[in-house]
């Protein structure tokens, strides 16, 4: 039997299977069960198992005080950073989509750069740029210009959320029908007024989405924050410090577990409340449309103001986002011309750990991406095609988002409690896979569901009337039309998994991923020279750049029909 016939047979078999209602529902049921068993329930149970340990810290006011103030810091910083990112992202997205210069496509690409720098490397890069008295802009002022602490954390979070916010807003502006704005102009509104009264209310869902993404990222990020925080503590850094304190023998296991559960519960509870609030009231929130200030708004719209707006936008982008993010390239290049490079390739000294951690990181990323795709696909179809009815599908849609808004270190902590207590012999790698699966699950499901939703039902129905069975419809119509958006969703999952630090440090004790290694080097937990750290970061950036570049080549000009 040749290959074609075999293929044909398999397709036929799958078609027969897919036509059976029982098979279809078994598949959807499996997806829902896996979602509950692997993603949603373990973190909740993990917290529940250790609930009692809170007692251990309730009579330690100092620990409670630290936990509370660190959580407060987390939300204050997330709020500040998200507001700043949206404010800075709007004029940038505007410039990219509406500007007339041919250089804008380069700007568009540059705005993505912080995205390809894994956050741990980004943290180190910012530390060098803002804080190191010998290098960066600080060297010009004869001392650190920004000391480690909350301001550096704000700068860091602003930088890593910037490309995400700009990407969301650029997408929204490209989809936005310009006629609304033009209608407003012909009715007498100057450009700024048109933006305020028409464009921004219509784009409000995207503005909220960008804000939420930035907010959630800021709450979750651990590795880079730990690098630049110094003595400052936000939620993830507090949890990390407690863990470090426990392994250094400074705090007891009971105190460590109690403080961890206490801080995690508060983090999770507040962030769920905030997101629920945004979800319920976000759509009702109306921007005030009462006043009109024709003269002020005219001044803001034309020539001078627009010019200085663009100038400020560019300065913020270059000085606060681009240069600091890429600054680590400097020691990386220096390292290339010293003994550090041959050392690295020979794997001597700290490097053998480094290469091993890269293997772990990329292997883990690949496994998580594939598994996520397999268990996420039926869920995405359920949500996109509302297979379980409108309200149940909407409920699933909300539930799927939960891992996104739970700070990843808190998620990791509770996952560890659950799996380690239930299955003490579980290998760490499996635990890591579960943790990363939980964190990345929303990304893969959301991106696939969005891609499926864009395909009109007519297309499927046309295929069915022409005689295609369900599996054939999927493989010949839906897959070809969505493969590029699914591929970019998969890449997002992969890069997220590779740079994830919070949940990773929470669940493992011996296994080390690349960002964990970088954090250990920078914090001096493992002694490494600055050239070694620089090169380590540089190689990490190079690898993720190659992966993203390859993706751009594959998807360029495709996937749009």
């Amino acid at each position, binding site marked *: 039997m040749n290959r074609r016939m075999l293929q044909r047979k398999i397709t036929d078999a799958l078609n027969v299977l897919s036509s059976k209602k029982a098979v279809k529902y078994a598949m959807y049921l499996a997806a829902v069960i896996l979602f509950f068993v692997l993603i949603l329930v373990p973190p909740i149970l993990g917290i529940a198992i250790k609930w009692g340990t809170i007692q251990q810290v309730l009579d330690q006011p100092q620990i409670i005080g630290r936990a509370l103030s660190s959580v407060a810091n987390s939300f204050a910083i997330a709020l500040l950073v998200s507001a700043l990112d949206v404010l800075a992202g709007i004029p940038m997205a505007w410039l990219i989509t509406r500007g007339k210069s041919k250089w804008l496509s380069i700007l568009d690409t540059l705005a993505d750069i912080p995205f390809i720098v894994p956050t741990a490397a980004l943290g180190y890069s910012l530390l060098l740029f803002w804080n190191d008295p010998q290098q960066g802009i600080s060297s010009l002022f004869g001392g650190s210009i920004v000391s480690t602490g909350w301001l550096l954390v704000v700068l860091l979070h602003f930088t890593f959320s910037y490309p995400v916010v700009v990407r969301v807003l650029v997408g929204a502006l490209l989809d936005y029908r310009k*006629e*609304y704005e033009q*209608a*407003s102009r*012909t*009715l*007498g509104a100057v450009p700024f*007024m048109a933006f305020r009264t028409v464009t921004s209310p219509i784009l409000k869902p995207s503005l909220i989405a960008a804000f939420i993404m930035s907010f959630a990222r800021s709450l979750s990020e651990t590795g880079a924050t730990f690098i630049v925080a110094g003595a400052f503590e936000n939620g993830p850094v507090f949890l990390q410090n407690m863990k470090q304190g426990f392994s250094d023998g400074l705090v007891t296991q009971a105190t460590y577990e109690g403080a961890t559960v206490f801080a995690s519960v508060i983090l999770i509870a507040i962030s769920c409340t905030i997101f629920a609030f945004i979800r319920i009231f976000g759509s009702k929130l109306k921007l005030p449309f009462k006043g009109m200030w024709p003269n002020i708004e005219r001044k803001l719209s034309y020539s001078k103001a627009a010019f200085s707006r663009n100038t400020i936008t560019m300065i913020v982008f270059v000085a606060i986002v681009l240069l600091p993010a890429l600054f680590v390239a400097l020691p990386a290049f220096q390292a290339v011309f010293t003994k550090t490079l041959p050392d690295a390739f020979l794997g001597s000294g700290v490097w053998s750990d480094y290469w091993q951690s890269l293997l772990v990181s990329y292997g883990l990323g690949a496994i998580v991406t594939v598994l996520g795709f397999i268990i996420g696909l039926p869920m995405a179809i359920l949500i996109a095609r509302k297979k379980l009815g409108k309200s149940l599908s909407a409920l699933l849609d909300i539930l799927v988002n939960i891992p996104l808004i739970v700070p990843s270190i808190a998620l990791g902590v509770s996952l560890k409690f659950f799996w380690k207590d239930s299955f003490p012999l579980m290998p760490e790698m499996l635990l890591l896979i579960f943790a990363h699966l939980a964190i990345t699950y929303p990304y893969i499901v959301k991106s696939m569901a969005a891609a499926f939703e864009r395909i009109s039902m007519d297309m499927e129905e046309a295929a069915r009337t022409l005689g295609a069975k369900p599996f054939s419809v999927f493989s010949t119509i839906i897959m070809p039309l969505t493969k590029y958006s699914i591929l970019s969703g998969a890449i997002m999952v992969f890069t997220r998994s590779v740079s994830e630090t919070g949940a990773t440090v929470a669940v493992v004790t011996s296994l080390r991923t690349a960002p964990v290694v970088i954090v250990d080097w920078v914090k001096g937990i493992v002694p490494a020279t600055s050239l070694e750290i620089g090169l380590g970061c540089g190689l990490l950036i190079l690898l993720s750049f190659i992966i993203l570049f390859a993706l751009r080549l594959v998807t360029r000009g495709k996937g749009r029909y």
Partner: protein
Amino acid sequence: MPDVRVANLTKKFGEITALDNINLHIHDQEYFALLGPSGCGKTTLLRLIAGLIEPDSGEIYIGEKRVDNVPPEARDIGFVFQTFALFPHMTAWENVLYGPRVKNFDLKKAETIGDEVLEMVKLHERLDAYPNELSGGMMQRIAVARALAAGAKTLLLDEPLGQLDAKVRNEIRYEIRKMAKDLNLTAIHVTHDQAEAMSISDRIAVMKKGKIVQVGTPQELYLQPSSLFVAHFIGESNFLEGSVVDSSDGELEIELRGGVKVDAVGGVGKGERVVLAIRPEIFAVEVGTHRRKNTLRGKIDKITFEGTFIRYVIRFESQDSVVVIRPSLAETWMSIGSEVTLSFEPKKAHVFAYPAAGLMEEISV
């Protein structure tokens, strides 16, 4: 008082010339249509007048004021979009009040204006509804009301009826014209529908491939088309190819394909290749063979009953055919295969020199 003038206006999109050196003068308080097939540049011209896009070269005047460097909000125009572009986050009433509000009128004055224009478009119910809850006809009325409420003296309409079904379209088009006339507005109405343009316009500019081919009243365009394209695009015409065998004082004798000779009127020299354009209703039809002046003989090939009219396709021995339209009530029925004699008055046929690019290319849209 706003007349609208454009001079030497050119607009390119990349390699494509959307508008090629356009000159046009639209009078104050005129209802003017820009008519042409899709891609002819009519919408581009309207958007240039509104200031939604900028010309590569040329001048635009609204009233005495040169406006090609003036932003749209300062041009004092109202614009009705093909897709209506009603703001989805505002109710119908808020949409209507938007113009007065951004012009910073006080609320009372804005509401008075809103009431007046809604009176005009005869829409008073469902004002608290959002655009996605309204029918196409209602959205259209709100879109017009919104443009009028801004108080502009020039109204620009981009295929304003394109999204409506036939019945509503026919009702609303006369209402729009009446409102423009009642308010003494200068209106420029873009459409690809020649029946729509003919029925509501004072004058029409017919456009083709970025150029204006003829400007005139509906009657002028119908009765005196200046080109084969206009003869074809406005109303309906039969085209018969032939050559001039005799020409004196503008009276022509033309030999058609197949050797039949007919008389016509025009300034074409002897020996020239020509195309004769004859409207379907010009022909007189009689069953059988009759001796008349200026006749063509053929057989009925096809009959279509269209209610008010009957349409016959009549094929000649040369295998060329023509369409003939007769009022259905006045008609003694003729049947397929009948031999008929057609005749027409020489001065009612239009004679055009045979186009260099070929007949099909010339009349293609």
